[in-house]
């Protein structure tokens, strides 16, 4: 499998992009990045950028899909043509993208309090703007933030991370070259309870190593949640401040 000349972990214990094994890539979380969607977010982890827009809760586009006692989720995943160089051009309706969409939908169905929005649809549009490994975990993180920004009731944050294994050393948050070289898995968890909603692995791995990676992933998800919460609180504070200024100004006019 290791056909490339990439040195996964050098003698100094650093990865090819000079990270330590448990170090995450630089992340940035932005809320409300789409002008017309109810909620949106842009999440960047390293060189992977994903934008998510939430439309709804609204009347379902296809009436026949509606459910009388809860909201349904519809997820569209798209990858812009320039996201990953010339090699991997993906069209809409690609099986892999459909699978990512289905994973996102199934991950969020038990987390969104769908019973609060009966007979409606929540449309989640995921656009991968640049891809450098970890499309699925970054998308899940972005969907969580977008749902929060749309004000949709969630049980908890859902955070996600990819974990790889080099010999016996687990690595967190893989980049594209690492992802194609190492056995890896994606974990999404609810950080408060530490429970796992999504676990996906596509490469061979011994059972004994698996548990270690799983636990590490859950820990990493908690770290990510703290980062995301900071951004959400900061954003909320700004909105509250603005409201106060406005109402303060109104009072002055009244006098």
């Amino acid at each position, binding site marked *: 499998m290791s056909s490339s000349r990439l040195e996964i972990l050098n003698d100094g214990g650093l990865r090819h992009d000079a990270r330590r094994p448990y170090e995450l890539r630089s992340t940035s979380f932005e809320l409300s990045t789409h002008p017309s969607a109810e909620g949106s977010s842009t999440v960047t982890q390293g060189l992977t950028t994903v934008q998510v827009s939430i439309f709804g809760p609204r009347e379902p586009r296809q009436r026949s899909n509606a459910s009388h006692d809860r909201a349904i989720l519809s997820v569209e995943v798209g990858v812009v043509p320039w996201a990953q160089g010339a090699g991997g051009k993906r069209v809409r309706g690609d099986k892999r993208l459909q699978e990512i969409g289905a994973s996102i939908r*199934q991950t969020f169905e038990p987390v969104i309090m769908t019973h609060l929005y009966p007979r409606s649809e929540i449309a989640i549009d995921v656009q991968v703007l640049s891809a450098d490994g970890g499309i699925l975990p970054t998308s899940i993180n972005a969907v969580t933030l977008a749902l929060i920004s749309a004000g949709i009731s969630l049980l908890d944050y859902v955070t996600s991370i990819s974990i790889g294994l080099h010999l016996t050393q687990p690595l967190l948050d893989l980049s594209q070259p690492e992802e194609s070289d190492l056995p890896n898995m994606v974990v999404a968890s609810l950080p408060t309870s530490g429970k796992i909603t999504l676990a996906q692995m596509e490469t061979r791995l011994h059972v004994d190593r698996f548990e270690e990676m799983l636990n590490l992933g859950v820990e990493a998800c908690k770290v990510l949640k703290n980062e995301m919460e900071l951004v959400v609180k900061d954003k909320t504070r700004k909105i509250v401040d603005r409201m106060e200024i406005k109402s303060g100004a109104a009072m002055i006019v009244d006098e």
Partner: protein
Amino acid sequence: MVREIDPPTIQKDFLLAALAEGKRLDGRIPLEQRKVEYIFGEELGTVECRLGKTAVLAQVSASIVKPRDDRPYEGFLLINSEIGPMASSVYESGRSSDSEILITRLLEKSIRRTEAIDREALCILAGEKVWQLRLTLHFLSDSGNLLDCASMASMAALRHFRKPEVEVIGDEVIIHSPEERAPVPLAIHHTPLCLTFAYFENLPPILDPTHLETTLCSGTLTVTMNAQREICVLSKAGGTPLAAEEIMGVVTVGVERVREMVKGIEEALDTDKEGRVVEVR
């Protein structure tokens, strides 16, 4: 996709009440698989696998093609797995639903991406001729857990299949017909098999869910493992959140179960071999 009618509440309550007592509607215990049966066809590489009332027919065929330019030493393994209306009326031909995609993708991942078949052993003449294996799956009836049944059928068919012997003299390739020389089995690294578990709220997981159990469960988890204690694919997409220990518990069960299943396949293959004449010489 045609929407199925939800099972009646009374049936749901009955199933959940039975599960709470550790019983299932068909009399199995929670971690018991339905009876597995292999029916070998006339030709080598044709196997029908039955898992209770679920049935999948797998056929393997081989042809000689030109390899890809960037991989001159590698043969091909193609997997055709379209679920048609024969399996169940909810499946439409030509259009694939989410669950269908999940099944075909998982099969593809567990057989192709885990390198179950040594593709370099399919090379006849580098850059010129390689074997192209085609694994065609016919989903005959869906009574739940198509995926596990399909993976068993596929692996049994691949292990049952034999490709014609070829001889290379210089640049010339001679393909010996099965009447002339005994065909050779494929080089298989390991036998990955899928195991699907279904979860219900506050209840222990059950193995090999039936159709009704799948519709009512709150989530499923599929592990693909081999007899060497390796996890090849693990897929838990959504559903009830589980603690890490619960996932590990399922995996531990899987280790034992897969070993038994591989043994089952090997026994069935041996029985078939006794009643079959392959050798000519």
